[in-house]
């Protein structure tokens, strides 16, 4: 059973990404707030946050990406399944993240630029400065009015000559100067002798007579600001302190401050706008880079998630191709891939059933063929045995003079045929009871050369070429069985060289998918195999030789099959035949 995806891994990955994303967002939020308030006034805690988000986090993310890239490179070198698909997915996801971030950044900066240029247009500057001028003019007008009226003879005359009710006196003052909101009089002892006008403008404390005449500091209250002017008037009552006041509207101070700050912002913007946009791009990139890096990490994780079922499928398909029909893929996921996996599992089940039926059928067919061949092979010697026996009886009954000679010949013939039958049955037993291979480390070249030597002496007219044998090919094989394979093939090769020629042995390494094989070639320059016999070469009891049993090559094929290998041949009439054997080298590279 192969697991296409581990549910626990997927969830862990998902949670990790979510937590990392939240951490980045929180850090960016803290960092952005710090920037927007005042980046230079951070507390030590804020500094730690800044350092973390500016240095540690990107370093961590970059480190993770480097590790993932190294892992990908290692997988690529080892030829892991799905690695090219994974590389493409990573590049694709990263590219998508990048191309989506760039227009977003451009759009944000452009929007901000357009908005700020609109907010801080030159007409806005004129309006702001105009507003400040008007406010200053209004303020100065109030000051000037207070100063001039406070020192005017009119006020002093009015105070010196005041009589009657205070209401009438205040009406007179208002008629002369309607901008005055209050008037307070103190005698030389500091006692308040009169207060006229707006009660809110009343000064509760007594001004010192040592204070020089002039403007008093502006006083700000919650709902108003108050300007006061202090002067002195000599009257019959003595020296009087006169305090006249003028009220500024309650929102004047706040509005004036707001206006000043707006002008300050406008001035700074005019001076720094170019640098501001560059800084904006840098800051945007600074905030975007961690997210972009996170996107790349996510692309690695997603790629892993996507290719896992594909890799499982690939692995399962390979195992099915190798003949393992028990393989199934387990997947907890739902979706198109799970449908594909279900279909695959169903297909393998069907294949297993079909294969079982085919094997059953083939087995029956094979036994039928073998039975027919056996019957044929057994019948062949029975005829000469029967003829010999009949001949003995006939000669004996007729009292033939050469009965003794005929008897000897006939019995020898019967013994020969019985020997043939015995040999036939022995090989059949070997074929049907092929023992399980007992692998051991064998230098395949040495074994080939050793077998070759035993036959080379019997046919000195045949040339032998072993220059194509590659050194250091150690295989786990059953030495006895492999000796039989090589003996059969080399013997056949020598027998095919009736008129001399060359037998060449070659070995080399080949790769099939992820597996390495040792390829052995045994080539002769004999007459080749006729085309109509190509399909029968490995059939039991098929032989073109007078003395052959027809079980040599089927036994060779069986041994190679038991070693998870493969055997085939290439032949051309009049040119020669080459047998190829691929034997697995063990662990994949």
């Amino acid at each position: 059973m192969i697991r296409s995806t581990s549910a626990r891994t997927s969830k862990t990955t998902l949670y990790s990404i979510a937590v990392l994303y939240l951490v980045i967002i929180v850090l960016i939020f803290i960092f952005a707030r710090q920037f927007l308030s005042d980046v230079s006034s951070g507390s030590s805690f804020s500094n730690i946050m800044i350092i973390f988000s500016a240095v540690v986090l990107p370093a961590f993310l970059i480190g993770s990406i480097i590790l993932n890239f190294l892992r990908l490179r290692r997988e690529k070198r080892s030829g892991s399944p799905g690695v090219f698909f994974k590389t493409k997915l990573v590049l694709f996801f990263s590219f998508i993240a990048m191309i989506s971030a760039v227009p977003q950044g451009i759009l944000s900066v452009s929007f901000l630029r357009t908005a700020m240029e609109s907010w801080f247009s030159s007409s806005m500057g004129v309006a702001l400065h105009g507003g400040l001028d008007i406010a200053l003019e209004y303020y100065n007008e109030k000051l000037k009015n207070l100063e001039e009226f406070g020192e005017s003879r009119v006020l002093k005359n009015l105070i010196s000559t005041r009589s009657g009710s205070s209401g009438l006196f205040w009406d007179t003052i208002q008629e002369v100067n309607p901008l005055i909101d209050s008037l307070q009089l103190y005698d030389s002892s500091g006692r308040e002798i009169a207060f006229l006008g707006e009660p809110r403008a009343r000064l509760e404390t007594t001004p010192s007579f040592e204070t020089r005449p002039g403007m008093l500091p502006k006083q700000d209250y919650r709902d108003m600001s108050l300007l006061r002017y202090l002067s002195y008037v000599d009257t019959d009552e003595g020296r009087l302190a006169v305090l006249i006041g003028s009220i500024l509207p309650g929102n004047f101070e706040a509005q004036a401050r707001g206006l000043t700050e707006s002008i300050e912002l406008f001035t700074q913007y005019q001076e720094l706008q170019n640098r501001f946009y560059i800084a904006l791009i840098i800051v945007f990139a600074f905030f975007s880079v961690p997210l972009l890096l996170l996107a790349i990490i996510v692309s690695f994780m997603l790629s892993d998630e996507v290719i896992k079922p594909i890799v499982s499928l690939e692995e399962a398909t390979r195992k099915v191709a190798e003949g393992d029909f028990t393989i199934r893929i387990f997947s907890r996921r739902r979706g198109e891939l799970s449908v594909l996996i279900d279909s695959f599992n169903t297909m393998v089940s069907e294949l297993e059933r079909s294969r079982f039926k085919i094997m059953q059928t083939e087995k029956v067919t094979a036994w039928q063929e073998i039975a027919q061949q056996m019957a044929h092979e057994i019948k062949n010697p029975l005829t000469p045995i029967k003829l010999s026996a009949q001949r003995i009886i006939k000669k004996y009954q007729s009292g033939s003079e050469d009965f003794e000679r005929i008897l000897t010949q006939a019995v020898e013939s019967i013994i020969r045929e019985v020997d043939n039958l015995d040999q036939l049955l022995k090989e059949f037993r070997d074929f049907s009871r092929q023992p399980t291979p007992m692998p051991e480390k064998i230098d395949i070249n040495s074994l080939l050369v050793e077998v070759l030597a035993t036959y080379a002496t019997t046919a000195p007219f045949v040339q032998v070429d072993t220059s194509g044998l590659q050194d250091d090919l150690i295989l786990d094989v059953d030495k006895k069985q492999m000796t039989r394979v090589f003996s059969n093939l080399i013997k056949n090769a020598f027998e095919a060289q009736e008129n001399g020629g060359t037998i060449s042995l070659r070995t080399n390494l080949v790769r099939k998918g992820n597996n390495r094989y040792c390829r052995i070639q045994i080539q002769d320059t004999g007459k080749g195999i006729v085309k109509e016999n190509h399909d029968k070469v490995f059939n039991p009891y098929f032989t073109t030789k007078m003395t052959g049993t027809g079980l040599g090559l089927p036994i060779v094929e069986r041994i190679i099959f038991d070693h998870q290998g493969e055997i085939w041949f290439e032949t051309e009439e009049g040119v020669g035949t080459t047998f190829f054997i691929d034997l697995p080298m063990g662990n994949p590279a």
Partner: protein
Amino acid sequence: MMVHPLTRTPRRAGGVLLFSWIFFFFFPAFHYASELNIQLETEKDHIRVSILLPPESRPDILTSFNNGLRSGIRFEIRLYRVATGFRSFFGDQLLREEHIVKEGHVDSFSRAYRITTDSKIQDYHNFRQFQEVFYHLADLSIPFIPSSADGAYYILCRVVVEKMKLVPPLNLLSPFMKTNRIATPWVRLDLSEERAGKEG
């Protein structure tokens, strides 16, 4: 009892130094190679700190004022306890951190140099007077009750001046305007000697 700065380079507080180094690497500022005038007074349950940026270290802020802009100054004080044993690996323990911020500008209406702090506004018609107040942090009281008799404590102080106080969102430029922001090095004052002197 008054204590004057003995050293400019902290011997401990490696963490602070590291953070400062990285911070300044990313947010560079011009350092004036001068010392702060610091007065430190320890009482029973608090310490009193006064800091003055000497005249030779003061930047030209009049240009900002003439352009209708404001300047800012920040006094930073950190109180540490010296870590011992295993804890020293993580640096000294920050017990308290104080940031006092002042802003200065010329007020068009009062035609005076104005200093704004969190709670109050002060106007000065004389630039020299303004400077004396602006660059001076007077008698900042920091609660301080040592948790153990044998503990070693110290404070770190520095002053950061922004010639042109950037207003949001233009303060985004702060890290990129090296010459606008000046910061004195951290000055370390050990409290152990001071306490020992008092107890003696």
